[in-house]
């Protein structure tokens, strides 16, 4: 048990270090900007006195390491600062958009995960059959397609040719749950298609890997029924790679959501991030990058920890 605990703790520590380094990188990124924020806000023609006063107000006159800890402390307390573009508190801008992004990503995950694992297991069981080949070709091409290609094909088919779903997924709080679902069908479907391909291929590979190991052959040789071999012998061992695959793809989903949100003009965090990058609204970029990074690293961490815990060899050390 102790080995598991120390492994898990090691992973958690590494995750924490990563998040800290990332936060430093995000902070330095803005520091490295030619000129500084004052110039970006006040313009180049501002008077020296105004700039000095403004620098004091933004605490830009303090040394960087002090400002870093002040910034980090503010974020911990939920104070993300103000947007440069419109002066509104970033927490107000980010909060509801983040909820929307989670809504979209989790709806896609709810459909994609069971579907992909099922397909992956079937493809592994009937490998090299016609079914396996067909799925393999279909997923290979979906992986090669950029997200927006899949998205626009879906729009062309389901929104323009057959007018069933809206091509712009604008949702707001006034809408009922089913109205929201109807509005996000197309972005959700796009994300599902993109993620299922990855997840299914990796699940298939993981299970084939297990099926090729000696203890499975042994089980077959003992005359155990095929179904029992898969459920009792193969599945517990495949669980760890499969969990890993699922979590990694959920992390991918969080990032893939950026492009899909832009295609469907969905009011989410990804859309806000892209807008802020083109407006060079750096505090908003910092905040949204940090949120995406923490979620991504968190999910990767979860993948590692779960796969350590679910591995039968790790659980029962000799």
């Amino acid at each position: 048990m102790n080995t598991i605990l120390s492994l898990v703790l090691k992973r958690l520590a590494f995750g924490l270090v990563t998040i800290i380094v990332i936060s430093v990188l995000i902070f330095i990124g803005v520091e490295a900007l030619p000129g500084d924020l004052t110039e970006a806000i006040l313009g180049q023609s501002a008077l020296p006195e105004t700039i000095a006063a403004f620098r004091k107000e933004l605490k830009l006159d303090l040394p960087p390491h002090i400002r870093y800890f002040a910034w980090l402390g503010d974020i911990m307390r939920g104070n993300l600062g103000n947007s440069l573009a419109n002066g509104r508190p970033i927490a107000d801008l980010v909060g509801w958009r983040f909820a929307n992004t989670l809504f979209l990503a989790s709806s896609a995950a709810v459909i994609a995960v069971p579907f992909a694992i099922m397909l992956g297991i079937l493809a592994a069981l009937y490998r090299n059959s016609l079914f396996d080949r067909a799925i393999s070709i279909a997923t290979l091409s979906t992986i090669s397609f950029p997200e927006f290609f899949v998205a626009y094909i879906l729009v062309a088919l389901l929104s323009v040719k057959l007018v069933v779903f809206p091509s712009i997924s604008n949702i707001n709080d006034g809408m009922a749950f089913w109205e929201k679902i109807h509005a996000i069908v197309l972005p959700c479907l796009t994300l599902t298609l993109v993620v299922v391909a990855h997840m299914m291929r990796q699940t298939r590979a993981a299970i084939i890997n297990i099926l090729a190991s000696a203890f499975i052959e042994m089980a077959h040789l003992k005359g155990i029924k095929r179904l029992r071999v898969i459920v009792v012998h193969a599945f517990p061992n495949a669980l760890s790679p499969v969990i890993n695959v699922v979590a990694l793809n959920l992390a991918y989903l969080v990032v893939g959501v950026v492009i899909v949100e832009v295609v469907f003009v969905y009011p989410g965090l990804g859309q806000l991030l892209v807008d802020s990058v083109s407006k060079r609204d750096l505090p908003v970029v910092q905040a949204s990058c940090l949120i995406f990074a923490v979620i991504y690293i968190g999910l990767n961490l979860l993948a590692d920890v779960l796969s350590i815990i679910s591995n039968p060899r790790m659980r029962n050390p000799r």
Partner: protein
Amino acid sequence: MAVFKLLRQSPWSARCGIAIVLLNIAAAILAPVVAPYGETEIVGDVWVSMSGDHLLGTDHLGRDLFTRLLYGARNTIAIAFITTMLSFVVGTVCGFFAATLKGWVDQLLSRMVDILMAFPTLIFALMALSVVGTSIGALILVIALLDSTRVYRLSRAVAMDIAVMEYVEAARLRGEKTWWLMRQEILPNAMPPLVAEFGLRFCFVFLFIAALSFLGLGIQPPMADWGGMVRENSGAITFGIFIPLWPAGAIAFLTVGVNLIVDWFLHVASGLKD
């Protein structure tokens, strides 16, 4: 000659892939010769449908879409290719250094790569581009740096296996320098996996640049590039005009082509026969 023999034995999927890639390269090189109009020349009305004058119609400003697609091939493929090359130079040199020198060099580089890889690439690129601005040079540098982490991982792993071979040991004992070891002993033996990886990385970089351009943060107009063309014309689709599907399809087409070749190459390199 060996290449021709290999080509004769290649499966139809790989031949399709080669044909697709050659077609794209031809389009990229011959763009100024083949294209009926200039890259940014406005030749007609907005979103004209296909006709003899405009093979694929016109875009949102009335520029010939076929011409833009050809020039787009040129810009998008060239930038993706340069980025991948740069990422390979950085990645393999660092990876080989880590594998031959080991010790603290390896530790330092590997931990840095671990941390960079723990961060979503797209988010990192967005942040970096918001700081350094969206010039083509910045785009190439940022993406090459991010992508070289993947190349580093692979080249380090491959070089680790080679660095313990007797012939490397022998070269080391006769006093060859690290650089010589990397170039003369390790590189030739690490080529097959690196070539396959090059195809995969190219696809990734190509899709990545297309995605950034689609977000309006990659290659900037009026330069033609496929991701940007999808973005510019995306409004058309709600009117039932499927113009954005052409550049988007072109991106998918080339990526599928490269993937088909890589699949075959991996199959040959792994020595599997079926």
